[in-house]
């Protein structure tokens, strides 16, 4: 079939690095194409080219066979290239409708004034496409994360019929913030979108890619290294092409899953948070990993935040290392050796403008102070140790952390808590938006921590991850613990077992 | 005047931007333009230093200085403190530096403490200085011969007492008044409040002070205060006393809003043009004219006479070293006369308008 959108021999290079090397790929009408590869493989560069942020040094972009020059994200949008980004571009202070048509209000202008009624009507139209039943006049600040994701997609779809020519939808990690149920919904949407739009689906979750796409491109080191019809592909094969090496026999290092000790690290009795969760009780032992499964709104995010002191609990008792505690702020929790690896890595995990070393020591500054002054020597030394131990890829300890890849940033976050010497680590989507290679490293590190007797609470990125890593699993629903599973090596529950209690 | 200033602002702005642009430009500028003021030059530079040219009193003050400078065609500069003591002082230092001490300075210090520092600096550089209005009570010209030539002031206390009594008379000498003061800690503000209080005391209980509010010399604040008073006291207000004309005019406009302009008399001090007009219109009961033209000019003429050896200041009596100027009470009756006799200054009659040695009250 004739391609709607096409890249031909596109190369992009920056001082010192060749980001894209002769990349070619095409999307046919009504086709769902998967684009996979580790971070740094060049996926995001491809997106930036399609979004007009980078210009190709050679080669070009073709729409319906004709070469096009894309000046800006808006220009790309107008040319029918609609992107849904990993980090949301929804403005909380604007309404759903205003977000969907932001910058494109012309069609609703009457005598220079925006007709809200017409705008809302049009927005409702788009929301129907994504089966989202919220009022278009509601401010996005009041929407859940998943709902906003849907608004993003609705915004992209709003192109359909508003431009001449076809629409190509680029979904960058659309599922990383969604729960199983929502992912299924999204997939259904994608399936009936296929009738009209063409779709590029970018994800780390190979199963999903296999499930939803027709054709798959694998990128590595700025090149397209493999192309295959989805039906002939397997996770294993794809993975090999991505990392260029054999897939580890057992991905989640089950062999290293230690039997939990008898020493309780955290004892929770009847914890509750107003319209968050209620009556949550469990005991976490040193060297143990408790995984918490649940859909958004199940209260597990709130629970994690409370345990880390970000929100104070309204009821119940919490013991850490046998001592009764009440947390008012994060620093209360860290004082008792609890550290949170937040899901919003960029805003909460790291200070982007700080160097790797500065971030690593941020939670443990007093350790590097003698008579009031920082000991930069020690700081660098410790940083180097952890860079080596966690295999962090960085030019130097003084490199701005913001310039590292997602995986390496996440490792820095982990290192921060290790340097601080915490006893309990709460992992909130620790592998969100990082690539397979880095994921494996993270799992390795998690096992290292438990081996050293640290206790871990895990809000997994996927059910599979939760099952794979945890030694015990709490399933939460509507703010309560719906079920508890033992997940000793070999006797792991299946996803089906858990989902039954989740919804 | 304004044209000239605009021109000079142009050239100087250009030179600064070039300066910012870097050496070459700055250098070429340096050589292209002949340096106007050379350290250690022989002729005297005259300067008035005052708060800001944005108010009529000081604008006239500056004009007086310019007039005298023209009469002897000497170089004349106006310095403004913008209400910032440090700026005022460092500007003066800079000018002393630039003129190599050949400076005759007539300064209305931003705050009384500044006077001491300024006098010391001028002494060090060998210039001559006259101070106006503000100075510490223990700082005296005769202790700093010959450089500290004189301190001139207007006696705020009797003046404001007199004008207050004009106000009382305007509403029949019986009833309540509201008073608007300047910045609480300013010397003139304190004196003028004192004068008012004396007048009230002398009225023997006939006149009562309903309320006193500082409006920081600010027209707007005076306006709002007066409006609030009209609510609070209503027709109990028989008259409004303002410590200067700007505030008085603010109060007047508030009265006008309530249709009371001309019905409730207002008085102020300083004698700015707008206030004099208001007196003519019968909306102001009166104001006190300080004659800033004279202070601005004579504050330079006297030290110039000293610098050029016309007089030996050390031999002058104290009432020629610390003295009050003549303040004119402008009322409906005197306003015509006041306007028709435009102040022509005789710069040779140095102390003609001096009215006695300054008194220090506890």
């Amino acid at each position, binding site marked *: 079939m004739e391609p709607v959108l096409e890249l031909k021999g596109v190369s992009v290079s920056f001082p010192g690095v060749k980001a894209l090397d002769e990349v070619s790929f095409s999307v046919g009408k009504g086709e769902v194409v998967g684009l996979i590869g580790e971070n740094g493989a060049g996926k995001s560069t491809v997106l930036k080219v399609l979004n007009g942020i980078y210009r190709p040094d050679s080669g070009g972009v073709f729409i319906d066979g004709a070469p096009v020059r894309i000046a800006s994200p808006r220009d790309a949008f107008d040319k029918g290239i609609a992107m849904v980004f990993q980090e949301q571009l929804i403005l909380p202070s604007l309404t759903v409708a205003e977000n969907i048509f932001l910058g494109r209000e012309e069609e609703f202008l009457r005598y220079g004034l925006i007709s809200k009624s017409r705008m809302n009507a049009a927005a409702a139209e788009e929301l129907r496409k994504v089966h989202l039943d919220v009022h278009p006049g509601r401010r996005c600040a009041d929407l859940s994360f998943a709902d906003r994701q849907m608004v993003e997609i609705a915004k992209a779809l709003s192109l359909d019929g508003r431009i001449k020519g076809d629409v190509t939808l680029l979904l960058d990690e659309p599922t990383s913030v969604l729960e199983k149920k929502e992912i299924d919904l999204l997939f259904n949407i994608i399936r009936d979108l296929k009738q009209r739009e063409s779709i590029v689906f970018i994800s780390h979750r190979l199963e999903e890619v296999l499930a939803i796409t027709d054709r798959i491109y694998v990128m590595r080191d700025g090149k397209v290294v493999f192309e295959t019809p989805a039906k002939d592909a397997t996770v294993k094969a794809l993975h090999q092409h991505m990392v260029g090496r054999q897939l580890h026999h057992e991905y989640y290092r089950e062999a290293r899953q230690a039997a939990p000790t008898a020493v309780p690290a955290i004892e929770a009795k009847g914890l509750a948070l107003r319209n968050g969760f209620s009556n949550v009780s469990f005991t976490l032992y040193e060297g143990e990993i408790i995984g918490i499964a649940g859909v958004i709104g199940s209260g597990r995010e709130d629970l994690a935040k409370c345990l880390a002191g970000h929100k104070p609990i309204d009821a119940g008792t919490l013991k850490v290392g046998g001592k009764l505690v009440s947390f008012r702020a994060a620093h209360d929790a860290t004082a008792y050796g609890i550290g949170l690896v937040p899901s919003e890595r960029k805003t909460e995990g790291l200070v982007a403008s700080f160097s790797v070393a500065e971030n690593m020591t941020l939670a443990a500054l007093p350790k590097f102070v003698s008579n009031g002054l920082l000991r930069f020597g020690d700081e660098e030394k410790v940083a180097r140790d952890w860079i080596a131990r966690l295999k962090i890829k960085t030019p130097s300890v003084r490199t701005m952390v913001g310039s590292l890849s997602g995986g390496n940033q996440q490792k820095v976050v982990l290192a921060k808590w290790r340097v601080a010497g915490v006893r309990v680590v709460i992992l909130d989507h620790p592998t969100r938006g990082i690539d397979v290679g880095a994921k494996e490293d993270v799992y390795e590190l998690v096992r290292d921590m438990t081996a050293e007797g640290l206790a871990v609470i895990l809000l997994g990125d996927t059910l599979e991850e939760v099952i794979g890593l945890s030694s015990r699993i709490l399933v939460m629903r509507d703010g309560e613990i719906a079920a508890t599973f033992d997940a000793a090596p070999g006797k792991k529950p299946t996803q089906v077992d858990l989902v039954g209690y989740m919804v | 005047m304004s044209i000239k200033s605009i021109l000079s602002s142009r050239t100087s702005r250009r030179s600064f931007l070039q300066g910012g642009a870097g050496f070459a430009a700055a250098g070429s500028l340096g050589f292209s333009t002949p340096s106007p003021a050379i350290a250690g030059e022989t002729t005297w530079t005259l300067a008035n230093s005052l708060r800001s040219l944005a108010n009529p009193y000081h*604008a006239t003050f500056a004009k007086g200085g310019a007039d005298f400078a023209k009469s002897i065609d000497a170089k004349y500069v106006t310095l403004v403190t913008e209400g910032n003591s440090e700026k005022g002082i460092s500007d003066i230092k800079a000018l002393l530096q630039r003129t190599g001490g050949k400076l005759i300075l007539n300064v209305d210090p931003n705050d009384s403490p500044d006077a001491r520092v300024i006098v010391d600096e001028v002494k060090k550089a060998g210039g001559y200085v006259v101070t106006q209005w503000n100075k510490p009570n223990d700082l005296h010209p005769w202790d700093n011969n010959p450089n500290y030539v004189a301190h001139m002031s207007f006696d705020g206390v009797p003046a404001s007492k007199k004008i207050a009594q004009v106000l009382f008379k305007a509403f029949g000498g019986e009833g309540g008044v509201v008073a608007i003061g300047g910045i609480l800690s300013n010397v003139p503000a304190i004196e003028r409040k004192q004068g008012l209080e004396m007048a009230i005391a002398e009225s023997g209980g006939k006149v009562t002070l309903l309320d006193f509010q500082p409006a920081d010399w600010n027209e707007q604040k005076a306006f709002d205060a007066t409006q609030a*008073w009209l609510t609070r006291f209503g027709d109990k207000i028989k008259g409004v006393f303002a410590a200067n004309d700007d505030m008085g005019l603010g109060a007047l406009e508030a009265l006008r809003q309530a249709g009371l302009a001309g019905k409730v008399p207002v008085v102020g001090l300083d004698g700015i043009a707008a206030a004099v007009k208001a007196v003519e219109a019968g909306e102001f009961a009166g104001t006190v004219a300080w004659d800033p033209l004279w202070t601005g000019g004579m504050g330079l003429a006297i030290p110039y006479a000293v610098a050029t050896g016309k007089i030996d200041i050390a031999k002058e009596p104290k009432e020629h070293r610390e003295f009050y100027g003549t303040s004119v009470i402008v009322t409906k009756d005197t306003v015509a006369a006041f306007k028709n006799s435009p102040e022509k200054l005789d710069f040779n009659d140095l102390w003609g308008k001096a009215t006695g040695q300054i008194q220090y009250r506890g």
Partner: protein
Amino acid sequence: MSRASVESIPLWTRWRSWAPVAVLLALCILIRLFSPNFLSVSNFIGLLNSASIPLVLSMGATFIILMGSIDLSVEGVVAVTAVLVSLLVENDVSSYSIGLFAVPIAILIGGAMGFANGVLHVKLKTPSFMTTLGVGFAGIGIATTVLGGFTARISDQSIRFLSLGRVLGLPVAAWIAFGAVLLSLLVQERTRLGRWLYAIGTDEMTARHAGIPIEKTRILTFTLAGLFYGLAGVLSVAQFGQGHALISQGRLFTTVTAVVVGGTSLSGGVGSVLNSVIGVFVVTILANGMILMGVAPYVQQGVQGLLIIVAVTLALDRSRLDVVK
């Protein structure tokens, strides 16, 4: 999906958005307790007189602050436009006498200075804080130079009418301010400029990606603000019957305070011109109350400071801005 969180939030915010009004009422009751005639008609009219100019100023300032910027040029712009008006209408300094035609001219000049703010800020990439500070200084300087430090007293009754006139018993200035508020509301809610400056204030990068012309919007917003300041300049002349360089001394901080007390966030994106209306009245009534209640002069600033803190504590919707700067 996650109904709980969706439904609970709006209730909270709706309650919150009324807090400034509640504070205003509380303040009125407090003052009423000490001063019976606070609620008298004459005082009400007095308050409208005092509030009309701050209202017009705050309309402009609100848009700037919603955009996440700040405008310190208020006093400078008002000074220039006021001096201009006073010279163009019948006055005792210049010979011009074009009456009400001076109004549009002054407003346009205000807009021009706002435009200068915007262009310098955007093109030189200097923070609005500094740009507007500089333009403000320049403005005062220009106003001083033009009048040579003196005051132009106006005798043009058509201009005076803007402040002294009464329509339906209310000061014309109040009606003008009311009109300015309606206009601002229209701009905020129903024009692209209005929505775009919200977008920029919330997240400039996203706005940029959506194809919003950032620079144009910023410049337009500063220009819009300038227009309001210009109008305020006219009203100042109308109120005082004269124009001079210091006519708006002290307006800057009261304006910004009013906007923030109203509940508009200095970090941008959160707030509304209606909040500022409340804010202006809180600040105006506070000053008015100080005198009505007969608070000792030298503690007034202190008391006002404390009450401002209380007011903001109660009124400001901090549920959304988790980081306070």
